[in-house]
């Protein structure tokens, strides 16, 4: 695969220290940038807050999934046993919440888990997405090893190459670099 070089897509800088990268996140957020991200090998606690990210909406989805599971379990047991297929087994009631508990619980957990999994990966994180426009940058790749890679995206309204470079240098980033689009030619 050959690659040619295109437009500027980002300015990147590297950090190795969690304190400095957190301070940098605050600095970038404070400077008014919105289209930026920090790629890290593991979750650095407090970084999302320093970046000014709002709380995740995942719990709402989880709750909805759980309620769906619980109510379907109720409906399933009530309708099949109590209405559709009335079978007397040892004189036990056709439906009672007591014997429904295990299935209430299991379906609630199952639906919550599936909702969380697909919402988190698919909806909130937009995965799978097997291509990233930054993927040829070595520092970006090293973010799955030990690098904290700060990316100021060119799409940000405040972005100019010079100001972005100056900001990252001021915040103490190493290896501040301009990253250009890589056009793949198969």
């Amino acid at each position, binding site marked *: 695969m050959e690659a040619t070089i295109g437009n500027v897509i980002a300015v990147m800088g590297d950090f*190795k*220290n*969690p304190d400095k*990268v*957190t*301070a940098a996140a605050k600095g970038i957020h404070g400077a008014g940038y919105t289209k930026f*991200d*920090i*790629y890290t*090998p*593991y*979750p*650095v*606690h*407090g*970084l*999302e807050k320093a*970046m000014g*990210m709002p709380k*995740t909406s*995942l*719990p709402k989805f989880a709750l909805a999934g759980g309620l769906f599971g619980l109510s379907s379990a109720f409906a*399933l047991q009530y309708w*099949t*046993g109590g209405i*559709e*297929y009335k079978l007397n*087994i040892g004189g*036990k009631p056709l439906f009672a919440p007591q*014997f*429904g508990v*295990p*299935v209430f*619980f*299991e*379906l609630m*957990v*199952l639906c*919550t*888990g*599936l909702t*969380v*999994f697909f919402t*988190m*990966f698919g909806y*909130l*994180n937009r*995965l*799978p*997405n*097997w*291509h*990233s426009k930054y993927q040829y940058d070595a520092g*970006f*790749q*090293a*973010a*799955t*090893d*030990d690098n904290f890679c700060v990316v100021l995206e060119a799409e940000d309204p405040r972005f100019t190459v010079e100001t972005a470079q100056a900001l990252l240098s001021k915040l103490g980033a190493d290896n501040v670099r301009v990253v250009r689009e890589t056009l793949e030619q198969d």
Partner: protein
Amino acid sequence: MEAKEQVATATAGYTNGAAMNGYHDSPSAKPVREPLVLGNKTIHQITEDICGIAEQKATPKFWAALLASMLVAGAGIGALTYTIAVGIGVWGLNNTIGWGWDITNFVFWVGIGHAGTLISAVLFLFRQKWRTAINRSAEAMTIFAVINAAVFVLTHTGRPWLDYWLLPYPNQMKMWVNFRSPLEWDVFAVSTYFTISLLFWFTGLVPDLASLRNRAKSKIAKAGYTVFSLGWTGSTRNWHHYEFAYMIFAGLSTPLVLSVHSIVSFDFAVSILPGWHTTIFPPYFVAGAIFSGFAMVLTLMLVAREILDLHEYITLKHIDNMNKIILATGMIVGYAYAMEFFIAWYSGNPYERFVFINRATGDYAWSYWMMMTCNVFSPQFFWSARLRRNVWFTFVLSIVVNIGMWFERFTIISTSLHHGYLPSSWHYYTPTWVEITIFVGTFGLFMVFFLLFAKYLPIIALGEIKSIMPGAQPSHHHHDDHAHDEHSGEVTAKAHH
């Protein structure tokens, strides 16, 4: 709350905060508590070590082990095919004893799985950071164990090609499943358990697969890791949601793991058979499951530790901690055995009393005493700190415990069934070669899965172990942050809400 805990554990290994640089350790700092990872590793070294295992060429030893496991699994699959083709009449079951090795093995394997969930979920919620060295492989073990459990429970129905009848679905017979039966609860419990364990495990794997993807040299490896890492980049915007999802999974799995073996115990406890009809079963089964599961984790991890040279990650501290859990759950199990006996006497029910006296002195007394020796007496050695930290002793004892736990299930099932109310139907049960081969075969299958996992996937949770390294987290200074003193930016205890 969390901030306090995080700071406390991050500083725990060192007498002062200044040593916690993460990238190079000050020689003056003496550990108060053993560090979780030995060898003063940098974050990069951890990537090298763990990814290195998956990247090195498979050795002839590996292929030999894989082949041997496949042969054993193959024999099991052969016996299983024979069972399905001919019918479960080829097993040693009779009119009196309708559940034998099939359900014994089902409960045994489901129980094994519980340690994995306990380590990944319960210890996560309790912020037990030592879990990061073993959680990945324990979770993998859970999944493989539940697959094995499914083998038994799906074939014992007799006509496994009709197993979908277990699920409630609209059909031309206009029939629905019986939700009043604990066996139906089991269908929901075990399938939910498997699904959630798999999602939890896979969620944990995604960032680590991305690490492997970015390092992969061969095209095939690159393609495989690329697909399964879903294009994970390590974006903080992703980690943010990811971490919350991980917490919800832990929060879901904690009651789930308790529910699954409780529901398995309902298979027995809800019946009115003396020996089964006891209210102590749910907690007793859960404790037993964790007991056997930890033993299995130890058996596997001690071998992996030697073969893959993970001494710096799975330290004596980890082994010590797991042995303490084995001791604690072993005591709960021992208490449950004693309490069962007491209640059988205290109930004043002659049938109940008979079953328990028969259990200890009757035809299956050998099985009962085997269980008592392995599960109640043998873990007592672990009161000794020296023995808890003796690798060979732990290895042998972990196997003894699992033998004991297998016999527990066998004892519960066969002693309660073989002498019913009518002496004319009293009977004895011995398994046939078919049942034995299937059981041995499941160990082969388990090893095939485990070997493939250990070879091709990150056996230690990279992202998680990195995040608990000294120096890995920022040092925020909160009002409740009293656990470490003020230092420069290099100092890294962490705080987080």
